[in-house]
């Protein structure tokens, strides 16, 4: 029995040392394993279905929903890897898929000490430089996004594309954050700007958004944005 007791005693002493490891890590900032993020983000790369109208980004969210604040930045840190990943207004960045960082078991560190965070892959519709989106293209892009969502989540198979949500920067007036619907016959109609979250479940509901549901314009049409949106989010129901 003595060996068992010694074994337990030795392990308990190791357990006692664990908080010191955590404390040392906390001083360096909150982190997430690059390998774990890679596992989630590479799914879009490996997806073999149509995705030419889509883009995939990594979104950082504070766990306590307090927001990241200005100047938030993610850093990829490994033995030989040091890469700054600036975040946009929605907390997103392009995720670098690098073998070196993976093999080094690098960490993604947020420059916010004491702010636990989570990472989420976000697949959105790629914005166009001219700000003009054919309804058919938006429907196709939404279908592409739904195809990917169904690929990673079997429970989403019953959902359908119903529209898209244009998310605009918070700065500026609501007149500049908006879009209009241009009908094929020439008529134009301003789309209402409301306030809401960029992505379902996001705690920050203060972004100007324009939601366009496909059913409101079943024929040929075009959505024209006044300014570049932060994101174009497919809506599934």
């Amino acid at each position, binding site marked *: 029995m003595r060996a068992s007791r010694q074994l337990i005693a030795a*392990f308990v002493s190791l357990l006692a040392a664990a908080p010191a490891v955590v404390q040392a890590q906390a001083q360096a900032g909150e982190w997430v394993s690059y390998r774990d993020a890679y*596992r989630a983000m590479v799914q879009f790369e490996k997806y073999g279905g149509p995705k030419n109208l889509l883009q995939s980004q990594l979104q950082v969210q504070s766990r306590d929903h307090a927001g990241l604040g200005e100047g938030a930045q993610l850093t990829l840190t490994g033995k030989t890897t040091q890469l700054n990943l600036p975040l946009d207004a929605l907390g997103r960045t392009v995720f670098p898929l690098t073998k070196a960082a993976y093999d080094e*078991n690098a960490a993604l560190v947020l420059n916010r000490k004491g702010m636990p965070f989570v990472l989420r892959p976000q697949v959105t519709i790629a914005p166009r430089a001219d700000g003009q989106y054919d309804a058919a293209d938006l429907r196709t892009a939404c279908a592409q996004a739904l195809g990917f969502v169904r690929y990673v989540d079997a429970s989403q198979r019953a959902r359908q594309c119903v529209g898209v949500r244009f998310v605009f920067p918070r700065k500026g007036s609501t007149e500049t954050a908006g879009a209009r619907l241009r009908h094929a016959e020439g008529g134009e109609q301003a789309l209402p700007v409301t306030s809401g979250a960029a992505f379902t479940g996001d705690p920050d509901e203060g972004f100007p958004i324009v939601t366009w549901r496909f059913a409101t314009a079943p024929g040929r049409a075009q959505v024209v944005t006044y300014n570049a949106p932060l994101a174009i989010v497919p809506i599934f129901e």
Partner: protein
Amino acid sequence: MNKLLFLALGAACGTAWAQTPATNPMPDGSRDMYVGLGVQSAPRWDGTGSRKVSALPVLQVQWSNGLFISGMSAGMHLTDSPTFEYGPLVAVQPGRDETGTGQTVDGASSWGTTLIGPVPDPIDKRHMVATRLEGMDKIGARLQGGVFANYYLTPQWRLTSSVLYGAGNDHDGARLDLGVQRLAFELGSQHRVSVSAGVSIVNRNYNQTYFGVSREEASRSRFSYYEAGGGLQEAHVGVRWNWALSPSWMLTSNLQAKGLLGNAAKSPLVERSTNLTVSTAFAYRF
């Protein structure tokens, strides 16, 4: 990031059912490896109230080509689909001698380190008569072969299954494991908890090997003759808590409750049909 930070870390000893980690896509030529050591408190054999504390080696390796080792199991993911996993599987079934299960974990030695395997138990055996399997045939550790298939209902919920054949002294024991897992609840920034439940169905040969008592064994042991048929053998539930101390270090702890059913539960070897296994280990991620 539904499967983010999920880890099905394999415990190398005392795990009866095969473990298959989730598909882990990675750059070509890379691998993801955990190696660790901890302690485990487990019944000496299925169904006994006598427990032993032993060292618990931890090993999980996944390679970019889909090959994996997870505890006492090894296999290969033949698909990189996020919703369906399947492939071949081999697993080492620990042997059993008169002192209990796991004293001869042959598969562990193939990992090439003397650290792996249970610590020799110095308990004074003169006082252990009632908690031993004296007179029972020794069962050798066996390499079983089979397949696994897992289906994700959602990225968080996974149905698991595996079939393995080759257990027992005659290499003719077959076992079907069916289960469900809830992957990685996030509790705090670096704490992940996953839960699982499942049942095991075995053939007659399997049950007879581990729960039957032959006439020869009955004549030289304290157990009466018992012929164990196949069928539902056990139901189990478990919870695993992974605490990521740093990108490289992790504390992984596991609690498993197992209830023997059917012919296994009626075996004279079984003193109590419900058993608990508790383990905790430090693991380093390479």
